[in-house]
């Protein structure tokens, strides 16, 4: 057992302070455990989100010493014994209270994505080869913790939530576009409604993904390439014009 120091944000969207707490920490504890102890013993009304406590649900996202993390998977021994650990709610979304942000914007984005549309002719026992779905499965590991949305410059610093759907939903789009059974075409939406051009590939989203999904390289860049192929490749443009109804115009 050792006494450790914390600074936790207490307040709401309009006002708040970093409050100091000290708490006894046991071997093997994660940051969420320490916050739970503070909550039970010193701050019964402190708001925080958590669920599975095993890195599988993506509820407990916060910023710990400035880094966006799942607090259930952040061990206390990642920090020095004398270090004060500061915890704030996700900063790219409005603060509800204390360590909880209002992430409902993300749920709204998902509704704007054209849903999965399988080939009706293949109905029954669908055949898909493992090697053809490996990439889609990588994207489907996403926990919806929104850490990537939280660090995305377009959403966080430029505050352009009306122009870009964000990395989480870019990989959702990628998982649909690369699904072997899907027949819908989302490329026009990827370009226009969802704003693929806004991303300037700084890979901050990939860095914070707790599932280590290669968001930028495997998801966003291939989507950008599909947009380029469709809209900016002169030969392909002609091809679409002549043979396909899914013309960009």
């Amino acid at each position, binding site marked *: 057992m050792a006494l450790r120091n914390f600074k936790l944000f207490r307040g709401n969207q309009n006002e708040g302070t970093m409050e100091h707490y000290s708490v006894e920490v046991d071997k093997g504890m994660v940051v969420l455990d320490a916050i739970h102890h503070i909550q039970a013993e010193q701050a019964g009304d402190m708001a925080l989100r958590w669920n*599975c406590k095993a890195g599988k649900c993506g509820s407990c996202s916060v910023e710990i010493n400035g880094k966006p993390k799942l607090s259930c998977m952040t061990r206390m021994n990642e920090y020095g014994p004398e270090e004060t650990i500061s915890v704030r709610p996700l900063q790219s979304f409005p603060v509800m209270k204390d360590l909880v942000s209002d992430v409902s914007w993300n749920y709204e984005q998902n509704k704007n994505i054209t849903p999965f549309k399988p080939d009706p002719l293949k109905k029954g026992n669908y055949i898909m080869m493992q090697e053809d779905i490996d990439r889609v499965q990588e994207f489907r590991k996403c926990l919806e913790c929104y850490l990537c949305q939280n660090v995305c410059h377009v959403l966080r610093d430029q505050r352009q939530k009306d122009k870009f759907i964000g990395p989480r939903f870019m990989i959702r789009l990628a998982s649909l576009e690369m699904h072997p059974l899907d027949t819908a075409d989302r490329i026009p939406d990827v370009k226009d409604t969802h704003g693929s051009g806004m991303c300037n590939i700084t890979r901050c989203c990939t860095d914070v993904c707790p599932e280590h999904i290669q968001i930028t390289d495997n998801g966003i860049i291939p989507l950008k390439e599909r947009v380029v192929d469709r809209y900016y490749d002169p030969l392909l443009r002609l091809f679409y014009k002549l043979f396909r109804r899914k013309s960009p115009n």
Partner: protein
Amino acid sequence: MNITEIKTVEHDVIVLGAGGAGLRAAIECSMQGLSTGLVCKSLLGKAHTVMAEGGVAASLGNADARDHWKVHFRDTMRGGKFLNNWRMAELHAKQAPERVRELEEWGAVFDRTKTGLINQRNFGGHRYPRLAHVGDRTGLEIIRTLQDRGIHQGIEVYMECTGLDLLKDKDRISGMVAMWRETGEFIIFRCKAVILATGGGGKAWKITSNSWEYTGDGYGMAYEAGAELMDMEFTQFHPTGMVWPPSVRGTLVTEGVRGEGGILVNADEERFMFNNISNRFAAETADTEEEAARWLAGDKDARRPPELLTRDVVARAIRKEVQAGRGSPHGGAFLDIATRRNAEDIKRKLPSMYHQFKVLAELDITKDPMEVGPTLHYFMGGIRVDADSQMTRVPGLFACGECAAGVHGANRLGGNSLSDLLVCGKLAGSGAVNYIQAVSTVPELNDEQAKNIIRSATNILNRDTGGNPYLIHEKLQELMQNNVGIVRSDELLGEGIQGLVDLWEEYANVKADGTSQFNPGWHEALSLRNLLVTSEAVARAARMREESRGAHTRLDFEGEQAAWLQYNIVLKKTEDGSMSTEKVLRDEPDAELMRIANLSIEALEAEVLREKDSTG
């Protein structure tokens, strides 16, 4: 309080709980044209279904063509020690394959066989590799698939909204009062039917795989509304929870580890499961390490390793080793996959287990064995419902998934929960649709009922002094862990029930500090009523059942008693407010189902083969 100031929203049906069962029920309702409201305590997609790791059981026959619903049914009944509701177990086994295929049509991406079909893995108590899976994150795949399907279908989702209690118009359901967690404001739902899909009540125990949400809300609400609870004594202790470090004690380690070949050993390096094979399963279980190894290598004539016996058996065996002083350093057993599979296989088949141990226990499971021990995981019992419609005895009140009783009897097989969610979620949805079509008038709201519910919630904040809700909860967890744990006796249970009487008194005076805005202390206090109803029901039922069957183990009544097989224990609220506990005679099983469940496996396999040959 002026009730007209509280927002009232109307839907045909309200589904409470957005795990697999609630989502599937809501999808069914809205597909069939009902105005559907889905109310959940957490954000959408965070319910405990995401923690289901191993897979969903369905006799697709992709990994072993011999599989058939009859074999799945037989496995489920034997695993449940024949206390399952026969009709429910039949519906479950018959409909599971269709529900899994439907998920694929909705965008789920399961792991594949070499020929491109949905792959299936071995699990405890299942005769063949039967669990459709996605690595060890099957639950996430299912919840995300249902969530994405649901939001495009016009379901209205009320996130971070806690259901408090049900409203009734005379005998039938008329609505529900709920509370927005963020603002603390109340909301009244007026509806013709409510489907409860609230999961279990694992948070009454100290060591549990369940998250904060599992406070038996559905049990408490249904009980208060006049529905019955059944089989509550059957609480499953999953044999493999983490035991170290202390802060993660109880966190689930998937049965998939054993499905992929993992073995259990004690401190003497003995593979102790070979000493724990019961007569019922002896004919189908390997009795040498050599045979178990052949099975793992894919020899279809070899029998299954004893590590894949049902969860009740494995959990008791681990406990026995620890009690005998042969436990691991932190009071569990060793679960070893490192010597069975190469590192690459382990990381591919069990990625989240690898990650979980690496981060939380600083242990590399491709090199070292894990330490595991029993953790309260699942309620086989729950709200008593009709098998086909999932309706309780309260008209308009339905229940499905973990919060309903019946499919699993005295012990659930791994993988049968995800299939139960899908099958019974859909049944409950259809049940509500049929019920609503027959309802001619919209039920009336009773303001007085709503006021009382709101008043008892706000009293917790308004009292000047009172007990700390976190501490009351901690005491409850201690009591249930010690007195209503993995092994029970009349004495322990008697003390437990007495302890609950005291906790009911403390609860009557519970006090939460702070305001009504996103106040976890208040939320904790509000869940205590449901936790206490749940705990009392489990303790009383456990005391009444004087035998050991499946997950219910009595030190003072060893072994299954044939006489007890004829009864379910049913609990309900009486006129004077106390809980009644009653032995209720079970229905005669259907003769054909009885025949299937009691056939030898050889005879059933031959029968299935003949059937498949004749149908081509």
